[in-house]
């Protein structure tokens, strides 16, 4: 059964042009999804609707079959989804441990060490970490929140190839081993290759295709 579903979602910033145009689709747990599309096609817009940062102009977003507006967007963000951004989005006056604890519902140090941070690094100020390490902290925060859905907007955009590969591997692992529904917006073919399902945005609509390679 779909954990996340969009039904006839239309979104417009200016009421003249629809960025998303009656888009529908279903997403399930345990899979890594890659959202592809040219710049300006509406990838970030779609992700923000899925993440409850905004509401569709028309149509609904359903979590486990229920309109996310029923419980409220705060609730949806807090319990159902975890967001990861290109720019890491960590709180700069907190350590990795504290950043991860923001919404954690479990011990966070094991998660951080599993993602490759040393104990010492986990207690440093986050700004004293490399980009890759910072993104690992953001992923750790997403995992620690216990949300069944992880939404990532170009998580590897600022990282070199090797690090990007590692981060993608972690996301894939999270989908397959932790049974999360992981949705990654990306421009990178390397990332797209790892995905189970490819979602392509074309003229405001969604084309869903399984990745043959996997």
């Amino acid at each position: 059964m779909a954990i996340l579903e969009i039904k006839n979602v239309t979104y417009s910033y200016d009421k003249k042009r629809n960025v998303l145009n009656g888009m529908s689709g279903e997403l399930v747990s345990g899979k890594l999804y890659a959202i592809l599309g040219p710049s300006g096609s509406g990838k970030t817009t779609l992700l923000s609707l899925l993440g409850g940062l905004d509401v569709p102009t028309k149509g609904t977003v359903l979590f486990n079959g229920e309109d996310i507006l029923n419980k409220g967007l705060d609730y949806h963000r807090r319990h159902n989804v975890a967001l990861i951004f290109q720019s890491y989005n960590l709180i700069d006056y907190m350590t990795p441990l504290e950043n991860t604890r923001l919404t954690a519902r479990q011990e966070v140090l094991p998660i951080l060490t599993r993602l490759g941070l040393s104990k010492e690094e986990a207690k440093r100020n986050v700004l004293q970490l490399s980009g890759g390490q910072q993104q690992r902290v953001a992923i750790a925060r997403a995992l620690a929140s216990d949300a069944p859905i992880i939404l990532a907007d170009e998580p590897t955009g600022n990282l070199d190839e090797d690090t990007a590969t590692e981060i993608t591997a972690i996301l894939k692992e999270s989908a397959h081993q932790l049974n999360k529904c992981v949705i990654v917006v990306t421009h990178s073919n390397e990332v797209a290759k790892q995905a189970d399902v490819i979602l392509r945005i074309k003229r405001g609509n969604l084309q869903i295709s399984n990745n043959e390679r996997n």
Partner: protein
Amino acid sequence: MSFLKRAWLYVTRKKGKSLLLFIILLVMATFVLTGLSLGKASDNAQQELRQSLGGEFLLSVDYSQNNPYLITESMGETGTVMYSTKQITPEIVQSIKEIPGVKYCDANTESLAVFADMSLFAGNIPIDEEYSHSVKTRGVWRSDESGLFTSGSLTLTAGRHITENDTNTAIISRDLAEKNNLKVGDIITTHSNDETEVKIEIVGLFEPKAIESFTDQVTTYDKIQNHIFIDLATAIAIENSSAVQGFFEATIVVDDPQSMDAIISAVKEISLIDWDGFAITADNTAYDAAASSLKQLSQLVSTFLIIIIAVSIVILSLILTMWARGRIHETGVLLSVGIRKTSVFGQYLTEVLIIAVLAFSLSFFSGNMIAGQVGNYFLGQQNNTSAEQSADEVAAADPGGAVAGDDNFLSGDTTDENTTPELNVVISGTEMLQMFGLGILIITLSVGMASVPVMRLKPREILSKMS
């Protein structure tokens, strides 16, 4: 993680900002405290001033040329006596006493009377033989309203006071009574001008708080121990001429010097008084001057407080708004992980409050220091002005004294009194509480205003502003 924990982390990690905020809040609280404590001190000083200065004015026979009822008669070979045919009647005194706010009405008529049979306490100023058995008699309306008794200079220690309906009554000093083997109920005798015998019953004995020291220059008849209070009827009987028909003067003491002008107006309305023959001497200048400088201080303090509060709100809001703009990113992150706007606002408010508690508590010391300095400054100013004023006041205290040396005793009492309003600036729990209240109000307003622009945004808008 609770918003309290996040606030604590922010305050402890962003040390520079915290320190700046701490200094701003400390200065703000110090000024607010100074204002509050100065305000209270000046209120207290006004209160004290009123109580200590009291307020009184004199209604007396007008001895100037304007008085058509003035009569000058020659007396003996060289002396003359001047009197007005219009004098203060007991009815007038009664009407004055009925004016609300009038505390005492000390109406009296002083003259000398000879008590040939009595041995007196000798003064140290030589006097003519003819006055050697003279004592000062004070014809009163009611002796309990006499300034000598109300001020505590004299105390009635036996018998009763003289009242307005008494005739042939007297109150003498206990010393004089003992010297002459007299007691309450005994009769003393004097003679009127035409040698008619006037018999007076002693109804009470008084004791003075202090008697003149050996070094004081005083005549026999002026010695307080020889003083005799008599009722008006007796005073008239002793004089037995049109020179004494009523009281020469009445000192009217009011409850609150603030209401003195109103009471004087009320006295002027009394139809029984023929104003051609009377004059009012009011000297409220000591109170007015001191009160107006205190009133100015009060206004200054209020203005100062309002400015401080306004400036604090502006400065705090500006700084916090600037910082809030720099915290859009953080706000977006917090919202994106599902933290509510109220929790974010709560965090921002708590951060400032944590620093405020520290700053406000420490402002107790800085406030005390500054308030003390300001207080001393005002006290210095106050002392200068009131020193001049109390000199005037003493001079005006007993303008009706007809007999030489009268001032010695009466004014000795008023000069001792400290009429300087003291500005006692201290910071107590009340001011601290008020300051905390005001401070928290200022902070809440400022944080609120600073947060509005960010809080109005949707999470997506905040996140898109971030990148």
